[in-house]
């Protein structure tokens, strides 16, 4: 097992990589500084999950992927995520480190919507990207993995929705780690300008059950004044991928950010989802479901920080643990001084299906303001054998009974997910993980 904490990729390698891609100087500069930071900074230190022996260094950094000529050639696992009328959709498919398919309707282009490869956007819309990239969202120097992310970023999407533009249909990206050893250092930068509206859905897929590799994902989402963003994700990396996922939201006055996260990876996963409710009357829902199986270890943090007055944050996460899997669910509601009338609510529920599985829910409320409302609910429990007895007494097999109980346990979150495509994708993926 790989336990090296330093990378075999040095400044020279990174400079060559930048040069090859003809990156702008400001970004080359971020990368070079990040290489040093990646050496010096400590790993993230989740309180109850030991990540010391996880693989963060064994991967291939630069792997190309072929264009997609026909959707029929795609594997079933990808096709189910696309649904019907795929040709008409605003969609990007990223295959290894290349954009293999991209479509944005003329209508949206005319309205000024930008939806493209982040490296292309650095050239075409350099000012916009530079303004938001790893500045007020995730910082390069948060920890070793955020620095490594900046140094080795090999994939990314920039989505910009101009002022007052409302996009009805979901915009979708599929990140397909086709090559078993290919690493994904992926950056999603989503900026919804004032009073705009957008639904974004992303899917991460791989098949590397045996081969180890790494996914290092940073998403930064900016909902400017009055904007409304729905951000749906279904993470479905195979067992060999160790994932670090850092999704960050920045929500300004009267803006809304809804997260709908299906955390369905099969490998070790460290995931943090932090939303800064910066503006007054800002609102965020962070909804997440998870199924753990095999020997995987996972650590999930949903954190909503209130700065704005009358800001509202709601965390809802349900997880099911099977086999010998272990997961920690942290829920953090932080109300800063001055965020009067803020409301911080959270609910975390964990169901363990087997003797060998472990789950933990840690609800945390940190409140530095008197005039607020806040609440939390958490539960961790094993599946009720009497429930299984009841279901089986009608002829249903134990496996089927467990399947029904799992769907039932996750349903209160799944049906609350505001994006229909994510709901149905999740049901598919949950179905695949239940057996």
């Amino acid at each position, binding site marked *: 097992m790989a336990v090296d904490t330093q990378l075999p990729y040095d400044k020279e390698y990174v400079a060559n990589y930048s040069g090859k891609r003809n990156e702008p100087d400001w970004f080359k500069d971020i990368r070079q500084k990040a290489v040093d930071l990646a050496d010096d900074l400590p790993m993230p230190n989740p309180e109850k999950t030991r990540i010391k022996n996880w693989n963060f260094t064994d991967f291939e950094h630069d792997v190309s992927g072929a264009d997609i000529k026909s959707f029929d050639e795609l594997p079933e696992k990808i096709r189910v995520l696309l649904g019907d009328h795929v040709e008409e959709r605003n969609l990007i498919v990223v295959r290894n480190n290349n954009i293999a398919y991209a479509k944005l309707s003329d209508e949206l282009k005319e309205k000024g919507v930008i939806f493209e490869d982040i490296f292309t956007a650095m050239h075409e819309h350099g000012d916009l990207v530079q303004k938001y990239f790893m500045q007020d969202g995730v910082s390069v120097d948060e920890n070793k993995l955020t620095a490594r992310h900046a140094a080795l970023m090999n994939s990314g999407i920039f989505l910009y929705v101009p002022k007052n533009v409302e996009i009805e249909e979901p915009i979708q990206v599929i990140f397909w780690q086709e090559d078993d050893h290919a690493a994904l250092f992926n950056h999603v930068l989503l900026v919804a300008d004032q009073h705009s509206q957008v639904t974004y859905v992303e899917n991460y897929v791989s098949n590397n059950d045996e081969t180890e590799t790494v996914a290092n994902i940073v998403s930064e989402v900016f909902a400017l004044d009055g904007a409304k963003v729905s951000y749906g994700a279904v993470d479905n990396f195979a067992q060999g991928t160790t994932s670090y996922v850092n999704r960050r939201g920045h929500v300004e006055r009267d803006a809304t950010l809804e997260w709908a996260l299906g955390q369905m990876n099969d490998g070790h996963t460290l995931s943090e989802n932090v939303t800064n409710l910066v503006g007054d009357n800002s609102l965020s829902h962070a909804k997440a479901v998870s199924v753990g199986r095999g020997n995987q270890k996972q650590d999930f943090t949903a954190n909503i920080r209130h700065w704005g007055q009358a800001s509202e944050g709601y965390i809802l996460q349900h997880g099911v643990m099977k086999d010998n899997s272990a997961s920690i669910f942290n829920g953090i509601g932080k109300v800063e001084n001055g965020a009067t009338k803020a409301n911080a609510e959270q609910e975390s529920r964990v169901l363990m299906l087997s003797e060998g599985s472990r789950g933990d829910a840690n609800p945390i409320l940190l409140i530095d303001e008197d005039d607020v409302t806040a609440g939390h609910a958490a539960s961790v429990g094993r599946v009720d054998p009497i429930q299984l007895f009841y279901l089986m007494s009608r002829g249903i097999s134990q496996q089927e009974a467990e399947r029904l109980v799992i769907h039932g346990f*996750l349903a209160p979150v799944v049906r609350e997910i505001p994006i229909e495509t994510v709901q149905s994708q999740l049901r598919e993926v949950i179905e695949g993980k239940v057996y």
Partner: protein
Amino acid sequence: MAGSTLEIKDLHVEIEGEEILKGVNLTIKGGEFHAVMGPNGTGKSTLASAVMGHPKYEITKGEIYLDGEDVLEMEVDERAQAGLFLAMQYPSEISGVTTSDFLRSSINSQREEGDEIPLMQFIKEMDSKLDTLEIDKNMAQRYLNEGFSGGEKKRNEILQLMMLQPAIAILDEIDSGLDIDALKVVSKGINEMRSENFGCLIITHYQRLLDYITPDHVHVMMQGRIVKSGGPELAHRLESEGYDWIKEELGIDDETVGQEA
């Protein structure tokens, strides 16, 4: 086809180390309705749960056969597939699973793969049973037993019974918590099941259920055994005279389990 036969022989059952059933013998054949009566705490519900394979009950001695097949060797789902059914006294609530989906999964689990019940046929059958049991049609789309009243849960158990058409059913205090109108409706459903191919064991401690469902055989349970058996007239005598005369006959002071004479 003649009905099935359930044979319970010298059944001893423990829960958490305490022996509740101390040698129960009972045979139920297709076409027969049996009632097991007795005061609370005498082991009636234990008998029902143990036959179905409830995880809390340990069978320490005895045998159960369904048409000669060893029931104790079967998993719970296999017992159901073999033709056993238990209408539970306290049905579980299953969040997120609709009654209708659950019923369809149950029916299909008892059919061959590729021979699943057609959806329209299922809906038609379910609607007609819902009518018989005077159940609001919305119930089928509600999560299984979640937020159901006591009466709704009992009707739902009988709905399942009628949909699954088992060979032998055990009804565990299906009358408790029902008002008289609900009792009549539930009884109507059970009586509709009567045929040569259906045997039924009704567990109750009230005679009143037997005013609507006439049993062929009546058994009295005390101290974890069947202490007296007879025809329908036995139930009538219990209604008018209570259980004291049986206790006297047998020299029992306290009829509950663990109070040996």
